[in-house]
């Protein structure tokens, strides 16, 4: 199960890298979204999967799932959600001001500062 999840995370990463290497700004942002999905899946896998039941511990809890990766993912998801929102807004504003979403034209040199 862990290996399967690792492969899915790897696929998401590959897709993310492909999207981020493209020239359209929107594709790049979607790429960062996929990248964070892959990261979160990876984080979940790191705690071990299917090791037991809910992490509500009694006196003699024999099997339970490690709750820490889940807490970490919750934090990481919220953060990546916020960052994606900021990124989208800035990208939209940049598109309005600069009139392009093609990264080739956003390169910028000293002469046009």
């Amino acid at each position, binding site marked *: 199960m862990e290996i399967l999840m690792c492969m899915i995370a790897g696929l998401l990463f590959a897709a993310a890298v492909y999207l981020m290497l493209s020239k359209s*700004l929107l594709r790049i942002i979607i790429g960062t979204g996929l990248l964070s999905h892959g990261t979160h899946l990876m984080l979940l896998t790191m705690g071990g999967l299917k090791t037991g039941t809910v992490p509500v511990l009694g006196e003699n809890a024999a099997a339970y799932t490690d709750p820490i990766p889940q807490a*970490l993912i919750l934090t990481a998801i919220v953060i990546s959600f916020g960052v994606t929102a900021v*990124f989208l807004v*800035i990208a939209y504003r940049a598109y309005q*001001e600069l009139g392009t979403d093609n990264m080739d034209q956003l390169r*910028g040199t000293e002469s046009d500062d």
Partner: protein
Amino acid sequence: MINLPILPILIPLAAAIVLIFLSKSVSAQRIVSVIASTATVISAIIVMAKVKSDGIQTVDMGSWPAPFGITLVSDMLSILLVLTASVITLCVVLYSFRSIGSGRENFYYYPIVQFLLLGVNGSFTTGDIFNLFVFFEIMLMSSYVLIVIGGTKIQLRESIKYILVNVISSAIFVIAVGFLYSVTGSLNMAHISVRISEIGSEPIITVLAVLFLIVFGLKGAIFPLYFWLPGSYAAPPAPILALFGSLLTKVGIYAILRTYTLFFYHDQPFTHDILSMLALLTIVAGVIGALAYRDVKQILIYNIIIAVGILLFGIATMTEESIAGTVFYLIHDMIIKAGLFLLGGIMIYIAGTSNLNKMGGLIRQYPSLGWTFLLASFALAGIPPLSGFTGKLLIVRSGFAESEYVGSIIVLLSSLAVLYSVINLFMAVFWKTPETPLPDVKKRTGLLFVPAAALVVLSVLYGVGTEAVYPYVMQAVDALIQPEIYIDAVLKE
């Protein structure tokens, strides 16, 4: 147990929340900002005195005992850096009154600066590796806003690249933390250190060391991961640039210093050799940039990269003396870089351009600015008795002691290159006859000059008063060289 170490984090947070509600009134924002920044400085001084007398201070959040809860740890290194960051922020806030412009002031500039300080102070103080990620994100989120605030074309263009680079490095950070957790089963930094010494020098630990180096190297701008820095940092105006240049990259360096002395000190022939190699390449790349450009901002920005290389070399040498040099140089570099960027901002404001070829002759009308800048340049290059000298001396001497001749000589030569680049800047801006004669009317720069000069004076005092600072730095070094001190303080064994 006292809750003091949380104050330098809590005060900026409270101030930022209050400031958001005061967005209509600029003067109220200024007053609250100054009061909050001063309070942060005072609280940092109090914590420092406490750490000096009673040793490392820890706070277990929510009273969950370490290593189960999040622990804040103020050791001497953390609190020295927190104090420096708070002083710099105070000066930058004062400088901003005259330079940042009402457009930015009305759109949440002051709250974001406080959030940035919250993130920086938090990163320095936290003793939990995932919490470090969270504070990094707070800091980065504020920096995303600061780099784009004002919305000029160049800022929008550069902010996209800046955000993209940092999103990727954050993703790698989370993965690295995940791997570290799966190997050690803990997030508390002291506890991780214990677990790693039980494991010993397994290959997976070395892999983790390199992963963390990539993450922090992207934030700290080490070779070859510094490519984003010169473009992005040149976009925002001077006060924001001063905050970025003096605080953000240094947080990355602090994180490398912390992880490489606390976690990854078992396989030094491999990890610290990589570190030393990258450090020297970083210095060379920075020197090339600093000598090549004819632009005030770019020359100063490439000097950040040189300083990063020197600091990394100090960490890579990894003796008591070199770490002491690194801590000395880290604090020096934060202060002097902020001062130089603020002075550079005044020069750009007077000349109306940052291109050296179009500037010149400022010494006639602005002598005090010129001589202060020259003094700051000497301090940056490390001319005794100014502040850069002690740190560099210790780093180079320990390099020679460890037979790292090539590295030490490159560090020494880089000082010459730094001196040449800033003196070149000084000559072009102040001595050279300008192409177009300067207007007779002098621009008013008094209120801009005071905070910038205060930082330069602070740097001079730091250099002259090395003897007084020495016991504080050595207490910081003790906890870095002997991780047991840090671990015992956190886990209370």
